[in-house]
């Protein structure tokens, strides 16, 4: 038992427990908060595995920016009321649980089979620690990102621009639609 085992145990329990709690929370805000807990636990798991930059980005981008966006939309739509308990498809829940158990067994089986093919995982972990020590985690990542993965990196910038333009188009069409459909006195407060 080292400190790493203890921290991994905490991460395992917190990540799995808050993911399970997400399934049973009726309130969307509670689901979002449990997702934040799971993401912070995962950031700890990344730290344990020597992915320092990714751990920081996980907290800043996921637990910070993306979850704030989620909470913003939840509050904007006012759907923080409880989900209806009436189930339109009665057979769906047992079926989903059965198929989910099957899927988990399948993934774990495939992972176990794959792990048998990997040799020297311990030595490789030492190699990653050496990389983190000598050029440093951020430096090693940046070197790969701006050399071998430069084209995918540029493509992601195109993707982000497309996403921004797409969201603006979606939002703008709605305001035009609102202006056509709504009464003139309701649009008085809007900036023309």
């Amino acid at each position, binding site marked *: 038992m*080292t400190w*790493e085992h203890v921290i*991994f145990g905490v*991460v395992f329990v917190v*990540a*799995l427990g808050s*993911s*399970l709690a*997400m*399934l049973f929370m009726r309130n969307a805000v509670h*689901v*979002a908060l449990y997702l934040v807990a799971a*993401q912070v636990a*995962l950031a700890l*798991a990344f730290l344990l*595995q*020597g*992915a320092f*930059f*990714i751990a920081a*980005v*996980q907290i800043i*981008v*996921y637990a910070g*920016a*993306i979850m704030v*966006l*989620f909470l913003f*939309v939840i509050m904007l*739509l006012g*759907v923080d009321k409880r*989900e*209806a308990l009436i189930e339109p498809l009665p057979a769906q*829940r047992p079926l*989903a649980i059965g198929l*989910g*158990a099957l*899927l*988990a067994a399948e993934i*774990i089986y495939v992972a176990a089979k794959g*792990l048998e093919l*990997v040799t020297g*995982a*311990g*030595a*490789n*972990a030492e190699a990653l620690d050496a*990389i983190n020590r000598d050029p440093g985690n951020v430096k090693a*990542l940046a070197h790969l990102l701006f050399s071998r993965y430069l084209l*995918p990196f540029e493509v*992601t910038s195109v*993707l*982000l621009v497309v*996403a*921004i333009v*797409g*969201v603006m188009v*979606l*939002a703008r069409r*709605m305001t035009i639609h609102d202006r056509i459909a709504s009464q003139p006195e309701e649009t008085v407060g809007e900036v023309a």
Partner: protein
Amino acid sequence: MNSVGPGYYLILSALMFTIGVLGVLVRRNAIVIFMFIELMLNAVNLAFVTFARMHGEVVGQVLVFFVLVVAAAEVVVGLAIILVMFRHRESANVDDVNLLKW
């Protein structure tokens, strides 16, 4: 080796991914379904980081970076679509969006 083996991280990743799939199948609120998709992406990120450590390279961590970017774009577009859907239907329930249903 005295540290936690990669198998345990992969088990955690698999279980979290399965919970994400279950949430998408069972829940009815579109925003909650989106949050479970985020959970699945997080589980896959954990698998990538585990593989990076297993192979002694940082390539897996670069892939996590790309997954993060795609997830951010996906969330922004998806939430805008949910917003439009809510304005048209006054509801974020996926059962109310059935115009294309056979």
